[in-house]
């Protein structure tokens, strides 16, 4: 047999050459470690940590703005006593809800859209991390950042008010239920905002679309809900078959749902729009849970199917 024939046979059967690539021989840290790394990286990215100063301005500025009402209230209380309390724990969300949404609109696209834009999802998914882990790590990072905005100002207000008192210990004992209420209501509104913001960002690779989409959805649904609800006649007036349903429109507005949820926790009377809707408090809580669940499900589904 000739030499030429031998070469042909090698070509047909294929042959393996040792190019000298090294195998990785170190410790494999596994899925849980990858999840934790991605979570911590997402949390840092949310506040622009590890990135340029320009990326820090908006998230940290919004966080500072969320603290302002608490600091003003503490200053007023320290100087003038407790006669005037425009800022309270039960209406804090209605004051800083806008800040939370803008924070979501600024930060969620960094977590949900950027990796799609730069086509790096395949790099994540080719590791120990699974698609669901990626989605959950992103959700957890945004939720933690949102919790910081929802909870820290309220705890500052609560603890600050106690310290202004001549007897802080008895104030804390008298108001021992407050931390639980802050925590419960804060977790719900943060979950709701996280779900909505990350769901919308996960649907588009472009940051601008995501930011616009989040704000458009939130504030237009807000206007829609409160305006339709305002058509509702007072409860005693006769209702036509359409006005019998219009009061439910408040549930279209994520911020009114958040507001109703917080008021249910603290047991305070609703303001004008919510009073007109005349819904039981638990309805708002249920609606907030539904918003959060739909948002989280959308994120999981999107990252479960996206071509990477």
């Amino acid at each position, binding site marked *: 047999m000739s030499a030429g024939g031998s070469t042909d046979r090698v070509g047909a059967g294929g042959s393996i050459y040792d190019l000298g690539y090294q195998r990785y021989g170190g410790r494999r840290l596994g899925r849980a470690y990858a999840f934790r790394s991605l979570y911590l990286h997402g949390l840092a990215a949310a506040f622009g940590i590890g990135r340029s100063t*320009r990326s820090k301005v*908006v998230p940290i500025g*919004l966080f500072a*703005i969320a603290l302002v009402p608490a600091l003003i209230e503490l200053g007023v209380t320290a100087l003038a006593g407790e006669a005037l309390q425009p800022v309270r724990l039960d209406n804090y969300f209605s*004051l800083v809800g*806008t*800040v939370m*949404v*803008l924070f979501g*609109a*600024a930060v969620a696209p960094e977590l949900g859209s950027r990796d799609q834009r730069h086509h790096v999802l395949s790099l994540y998914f080719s590791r120990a991390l699974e698609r669901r882990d990626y989605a959950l790590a992103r959700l957890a990072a945004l939720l933690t950042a949102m919790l910081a905005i929802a909870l820290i100002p309220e705890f500052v207000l609560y603890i600050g008010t106690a310290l202004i008192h001549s007897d802080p210990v008895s104030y804390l004992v008298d108001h021992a239920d407050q931390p639980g209420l802050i925590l419960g209501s804060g977790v719900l509104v943060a979950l709701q905002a996280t779900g909505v913001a990350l769901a919308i960002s996960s649907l*588009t690779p472009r940051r*601008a*679309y995501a*930011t*616009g*989409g989040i*704000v*458009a959805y939130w*504030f*237009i649904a*807000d*206007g*829609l809900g*409160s*305006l*339709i609800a*305002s*058509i509702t*006649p007072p409860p005693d007036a006769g209702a*036509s078959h*359409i*006005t019998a349903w*219009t009061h439910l429109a408040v549930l279209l507005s994520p911020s009114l749902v958040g507001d109703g949820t917080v008021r249910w926790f603290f047991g305070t009377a609703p303001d004008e729009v919510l009073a007109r809707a005349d819904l039981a408090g638990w309805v708002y809580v249920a609606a907030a849970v539904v918003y959060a669940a739909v948002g989280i499900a959308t994120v999981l589904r999107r990252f479960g199917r996206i071509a990477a």
Partner: protein
Amino acid sequence: MGRHGVFRQLAVLTARQALGRRRMLVALLAAAVPVLVALVYRLAGGQDPELFASDLLNGIVVTTLLPLVALIFGTSVLGGEIEDGTIVYLLVRPVARREIVAAKLLVGAAATAILVGISAALALLISLPPSLGPGMVMASSVAIAWGALIYTAIAVALTLVTGHALIVGLIYVYLWEGVIAGLFAGTRLASVHQYVLGVAAALDPTQPSLLQAHLSAASSVGLGLLVAAAATVFAVWRLAGFEVAERP
């Protein structure tokens, strides 16, 4: 090709780039909302149409829809090209940079005014009786066109300062105009929202107007002109100093 031709080419190109596909879909969905609300109101046999129309115009069109659409279009007409890097191909051409800014601004403002104006007009015609409808539509159209120009000028200027123009614009609209101007009356002098309301209230056929405007028509026009001119001049100045390699 003459100067007029260049301007037209720029405008057509911008309209094709910035108003395409998904951005338009989101804007259209948003613009459908006031019409939907007016329909529900009409079907529910609504009471007090003048108050409802004022709430609709002030509460959803002027406070939310107009700034949102203007910021989305305004940041995409020039910002989209900066982000994609295609601005380079525009800047290396012998076109005056003030013409680029003018074309971008015009397209963004016109698209906003048309979309939001039609949405408001339909909603008002549905909710108001025929005696008031057309007059109110006239008032809202003029005011919306005015606001579209100012907001778009601000948005175009912002895209030349920061890569986060949209979120910065939104923070201005929802925190400054929405929250701060509600608490501190003096800041209303620096609120585009109030310039729009001032113009609308002056043209409103129902007098006294229910629009809760805080500025007179003269100051709304004067201050608005000042802001729009300052933003445009600033944008031209920034673009004139724009280095092709720069990625803001």
